């Protein structure tokens, strides 16, 4: 990679399609600072409407789990049925529990 003075950095873009919905990853934009990243994200990912909020995050700031983590990270949650409501029995006909 050649280093020049005109390269901007990627920012990951998360958009919220409507109030109350979670922000979802949409893609990236390249920008030199946060305000321009936000404006660029608005022009690129919200140009058809259907967006009420945008987050931009420097791509370098995202720390992600690795595929090899899958076992240790996520499998232990598989055998904890007591975290789910279906684990518990209540007498037939009981309401609002």
């Amino acid at each position, binding site marked *: 990679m050649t280093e020049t003075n005109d390269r901007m*950095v990627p920012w990951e873009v998360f958009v919220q399609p409507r109030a109350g919905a979670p922000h979802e990853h949409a893609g990236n934009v390249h920008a*030199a600072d946060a305000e321009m990243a936000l404006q660029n994200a608005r022009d690129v990912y919200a140009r058809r409407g259907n967006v009420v909020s945008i987050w931009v995050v420097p791509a370098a700031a995202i720390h992600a789990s690795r595929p090899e983590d899958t076992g240790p990270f996520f499998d232990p949650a598989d055998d904890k049925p007591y975290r789910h409501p279906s684990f518990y029995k209540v007498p037939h006909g009981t309401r609002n529990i």
Partner: protein
Amino acid sequence: MDETTLLKAFEARVAAGEKIEPRDWMPERYRRQLVRMMSQHAHSEIVGMLPEGNWITRAPNLRRKMALLAKVQDEAGHGLYIYSATETLGVDRNDLIQELLDGKAKYSNIFNYPTLTWADIGVIGWFVDGAAIVNQTMLAKASYGPYARAMIRICKEENFHKKQGYEICVTLAKGTPAQRQMLQDAVNRWWWPTLMMFGPHDTESANSDELLRWKVKQKTNDELRQHFVNITVPQVHALGLTLPDPDLRYDEETGNWITGEIDWDEFWRVVRGHGPCNRERLRARRAAHEEGTWVREAARAYAAKQQRKTRPSNGVEVA
């Protein structure tokens, strides 16, 4: 785990229809094929802005002008989505664009043909976007997650592109004799280059087998081309137009429209840089990039100054 075991597991996942994500293990060859194919796709969107952009300032009414500007702008957006997906493979968009500007990277041949009349804008939407949609609908199921997701987004947005093109063509077909002539001429000029968009015959296509096995593609070049021909020929006839192919015939047995042979000499000549507009297209992209250098430098310099102001003790710069 050794390479062979990893490869087996990878191929089993692909065969089971699972998506491959950026941090998953993948064969280096798969990664490289994706970078090549996706960056070519992104470059095509960007260079593809030029032939249609040529008519934005001359669109015949305000409605057409806004639709065309929005469409060409979408192409920039789609290029950006695909570059963004390509960057998940550990490459930098700036480097990919530099390869395009240096003439080292390819883009779709179709954009090396000129737009001579307003009818070209209609026919490009109808034929070229029609062909692109056939291709993209397949790629929306590609095994690489970020590519498939970018394609789903693009397919949703592109629905209007082909329709606006066809609407222009219908209007011209119902118009004055001069307009009908303009339309027929555009159909004659764009038909063969559009068929070439699907690439060489399967027997001649170097990358096809691998891309099919890894489910980047689900159909061969010839299958996609045949599908496009089958849906498009009746649309051409419905407008009372003809196609510039004396050998075109309907095959009752297969239900396919069979075309004559594509001029492959022309295809390879354009691939090698000798189409009608190859030089103009690259020159326009280079000019935009070079004239933009001081702007990008200014944005970076400003960001660096602001950062020094807010965090004077920290020498690390994000930009």
